[in-house]
């Protein structure tokens, strides 16, 4: 037993190797580096591109419901399909896809623990030819968006003012302090560096082991507990554009069982560009001391 609050949402690389071509299972690779899939992927896996297929490409927003339904249908996914997501960077954008699938109410969606990195390091089979997924026989019907999983700017402003929720900044320490505006090599940026006043710094990667898998439940409890995060806490996670924070959202909600955790996908590219928004600069205080 893993001890995770919802260990049914995690599958091992062994499990995927045995089930990736099951008729009721659809494995999907979602990478930061959208070319990685072409280099070699889990046999039977399809790919979604985060920057064109998992967002509204006109308005800055998540996928609208109709587009989400179309993507599922085109991907051969029905409401009862078991969807297994994995990707590079320890499942950054796999978690982003997971978050959106839960917003639209997909019942059985899971993450392959360790992601692409673990699959490669275990020298497992790869296919280079893209998997052709026939569309579903029936159009996919999503549920109405569950916005309790998502934080918008007014909620974050309220949380900052009243401390009604713990703000977890999951970016790198250099982004948190304001030393850099965005990670090297990534284009989305902001006008000001720093963090939301009162936010706690817990870089997303601290939740992972070297092999890409998630840390044990006891290690995660210690990591987030030091910042006051308990199962009964209200938490808002944010990063730069919402993908790293969806990883932390996943950890808090599904591995630790925090009941009220939301992902602020506006994140620093919204807050750090707002006229008049308060910004705090400097390194994180030690655990438990953030004001």
């Amino acid at each position: 037993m893993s001890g995770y609050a919802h260990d049914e949402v995690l599958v091992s690389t062994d499990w995927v190797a045995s089930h990736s071509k099951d008729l009721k299972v659809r494995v999907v690779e979602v990478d930061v580096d959208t070319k990685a899939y072409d280099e070699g992927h889990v046999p039977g896996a399809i790919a979604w591109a985060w920057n064109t297929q998992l967002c509204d490409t006109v308005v800055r927003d998540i996928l609208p419901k109709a587009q989400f339904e179309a993507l599922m249908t085109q991907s051969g996914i029905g409401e009862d399909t078991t969807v297994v997501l994995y990707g590079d960077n320890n499942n950054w954008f796999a978690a982003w896809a997971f978050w959106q699938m839960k917003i639209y109410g997909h019942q059985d969606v899971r993450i392959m623990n360790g992601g692409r990195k673990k699959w490669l390091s275990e020298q497992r089979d790869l296919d280079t030819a893209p998997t052709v997924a026939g569309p579903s026989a029936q159009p996919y019907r999503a549920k109405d968006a569950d916005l309790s999983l998502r934080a918008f700017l007014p909620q974050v402003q309220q949380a900052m003012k009243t401390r009604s929720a713990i703000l977890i900044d999951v970016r790198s320490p250099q982004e948190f302090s304001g030393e850099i505006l965005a990670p090297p090599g990534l284009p989305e940026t902001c006008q000001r560096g720093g963090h939301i006043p009162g936010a706690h710094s817990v870089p997303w990667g601290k939740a992972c082991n070297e092999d890409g898998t998630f840390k044990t439940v006891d290690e995660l409890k210690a990591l987030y507990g030091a910042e006051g995060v308990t199962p009964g806490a209200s938490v808002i996670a944010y990063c730069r554009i919402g993908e790293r924070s969806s990883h932390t959202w996943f950890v808090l909600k599904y591995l630790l069982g925090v009941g009220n955790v939301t992902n602020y996908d506006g994140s620093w590219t919204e807050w750090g560009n707002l006229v008049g928004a308060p910004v705090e600069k400097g390194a994180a205080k030690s655990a438990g001391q953030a004001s």
Partner: protein
Amino acid sequence: MKPEHYSERKVEIDGWPVNVASYQLEGKWHAKADNVSPGAALARIVAATREEAEQKALDRARELLSRTKRRGV
């Protein structure tokens, strides 16, 4: 087909921790460099040897990292 000889190591470039991973796939060597935190990919290279692939990935990483402006806080 299977990836072979997967390896991963951390190096430092101009004060930035960089992770470089490489493996062989169908006779070609693939290397990827990313910055350790947050892990964003900096370069992905395919070459005839591991040394060449890793070196090109690290060269590209160095180029991108040198463009990242650090600010006083």
